[in-house]
């Protein structure tokens, strides 16, 4: 009798181990998938840039340097090897675009161009999408980290050396931009 009870207990523990391990794997994969979603939005953003440059080139006479900055930032973004590099490059691109749009302010014809308006709208929409995919990423990181820090799943996490992920934090500069907006 005692043997069966012990056997049952061991079986239950094994089952719990299995379920917990699998759920940790699922959480980790979700975090990875969420990263790739950020990447999708960043790609989308960089694919809009050549069109923008092409449109602006015809109008802007003096401040060509701004265009160079944007192109450089885009190249850096395209060549980013890992998510952290991509995040940094994206921040640079955001800054470069900001100064480009500031320059555009002094060219009424450019501002009136339908194509330019459309690109501006699309770029700002993509920016929101990047932010949204970051938010989703952070939600998933929170789920994973919660599991890895709360008992008893934390024990399983330690046993199989799962690692906590880092939240996607915006840079200080971006934070300042947001503060201005509100």
């Amino acid at each position: 009798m005692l043997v069966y009870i012990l056997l049952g207990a061991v079986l239950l523990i094994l089952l719990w181990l299995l379920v917990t391990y699998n759920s940790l794997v699922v959480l980790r994969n979700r975090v990875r998938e969420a990263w790739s979603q950020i990447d999708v939005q960043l790609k989308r953003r960089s694919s809009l840039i050549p069109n923008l440059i092409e449109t602006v080139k015809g109008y802007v006479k003096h401040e060509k340097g701004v265009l160079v900055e944007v192109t450089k930032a885009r190249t850096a973004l395209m060549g980013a090897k890992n998510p952290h590099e991509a995040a940094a490059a994206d921040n640079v691109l955001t800054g470069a675009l900001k100064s480009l749009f500031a320059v555009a302010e002094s060219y009424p014809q450019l501002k009136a161009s339908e194509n330019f308006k459309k690109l501006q709208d699309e770029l700002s929409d993509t920016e929101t999408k990047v932010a949204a995919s970051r938010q989703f990423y952070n939600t998933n990181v929170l789920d994973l980290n919660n599991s890895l820090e709360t008992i008893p799943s934390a024990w399983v996490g330690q046993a199989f050396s799962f690692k906590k992920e880092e939240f996607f934090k915006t840079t200080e500069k971006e934070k300042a931009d947001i503060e201005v907006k509100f």
Partner: protein
Amino acid sequence: MATVNTAWDHVSSNIFKTWVIMFFFSIFTVGVIYVIAQGFGYGEVGGLGLVGFALIMAGLMNFVSYYWSDKIVLGISRAKQIKHDENQELYHLVENLCIAAGLPVPRIYIIEDSATNAFATGRNPKNSAIALTSGILQKLNKQELEGVIAHELSHVGNRDTLVMATVSVLVGTIALASDFFLRSMWFGGRDRNSKGSAIFVVLALIAAILAPIIATLIQLAVSRRREFLADASGALLTRYPQGLAQALQKISSDREPLEVANRGTAHLYIVNPLKGKNAAGWLVGLFNTHPPVEARIKALNEMVGLVR
């Protein structure tokens, strides 16, 4: 008393309360079924057989309305689907919130009506749809609209169509079984009940009369819980609970009734579209599909720290 503060706390407390309600509802259902089956007195198998029949019937009926929930409701509400190019701004608003929620983009419908309301439907996120009246698009600003859409997407993400369908099956089973029993008392002779002991017949009679009402009240309690939950999950999406709070204020103070809504679809909308007297008081409250707007706004304000 624990202080409920952030949207996270509201989400977990509402999920927990849903489980508590469902737990007691299950026990209640089993109890009612047991009493009625005994009251039938066909012996174990016969009575349970009839209750089983009630379960299967309720299951089938609800499966139809669950599986084709989107088609049925959207058809009744005369909603027209819109594509990306027809209303880019709205489409992007929905799409961006979906990215943040990790949901596929639902089909988007517009109901041509100047009333302000919205609902979500569909058996799972892949088959989900959200509908907005043209009135709500005109009268709400972007942040308020974002709040409303986040609330609807949260219904989708929280699988509320499934939750409510499950509850409906239990309510339907109790209602049908009670109905069978009352009919059998009416038409059936004594001989049929000969095997059921007298005490169980009396108990079953009481259960058959009271249980359907109690079950409906529980169903409404679950519905209100899910509204609170969708408000809180929506607040987590937009991180701006005030948007939804302002929208609820606007929608509820807009007295215009929605023509296409009826008693069958009223529970789906973000605010009850049948704008009856908004009489307060707990007795009336028990029969509402939605919590009072004031309570929802108070909960949302609590998330921002405006209320303690």
